[in-house]
């Protein structure tokens, strides 16, 4: 079974600074997706960024980028130029591509607070 571990329950960052959220995962599979989801206080989960395991290049989406280390099974999220609207719970998630029927597996989340 796959597991996702987020070792930082809470983090804070000053506005305009950079913060990195950690995620490690455990799987015996070679073909999978990794995601970072954001859940603001309103609760709706929103996709931030995704990474396909077979791609070596790290994914980037504007101020959000990942550091994907496949051998180390590490998938950290870097948020540059942090904004107050980035305050939210952030969840790292894994899904296998080997079967279309496997659910998305989430970590326990990191609560990020951006301070003015």
């Amino acid at each position, binding site marked *: 079974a796959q597991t996702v571990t987020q070792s930082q329950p809470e983090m804070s960052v000053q506005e305009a600074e950079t913060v990195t959220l950690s995620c490690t995962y455990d799987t015996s599979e070679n073909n999978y997706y990794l995601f970072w989801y954001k859940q603001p206080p309103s609760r709706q989960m929103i996709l931030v960024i995704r990474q396909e395991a077979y791609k070596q290049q790290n994914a980037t989406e504007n101020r959000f980028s990942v550091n994907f280390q496949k051998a180390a099974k590490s998938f950290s999220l870097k948020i540059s130029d942090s904004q107050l609207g980035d305050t939210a719970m952030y969840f790292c998630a894994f899904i296998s591509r080997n079967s279309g*029927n496997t659910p*998305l597996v*989430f970590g326990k989340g990191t609560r990020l607070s951006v301070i003015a």
Partner: protein
Amino acid sequence: GAGVSQSPRYKVAKRGQDVALRCDPISGHVSLFWYQQALGQGPEFLTYFQNEAQLDKSGLPSDRFFAERPEGSVSTLKIQRTQQEDSAVYLCASSLGTGELFFGEGSRLTVL
């Protein structure tokens, strides 16, 4: 619709009551997932549908939990004889099967 819609947004039930939570997925999305999210925790998988077929219900915590999607679109999660430990946010998500899930705002259930 434009996004995944869930109702009710908030539900308060007395212990022992039955509740039904509804999910309207994005039109055309064949895959539908239900997750349970306890306060301060990550979502935990409950069950999964592909069209009307329930392909995985391994996450349902007890036989009091039942989900259906009879016409392959709207889904209902039913909880019978609710207990206090059932208090949580129930998230529904739909997908085209490409891995990315689109989530609704959730239904917050409080059992007194």
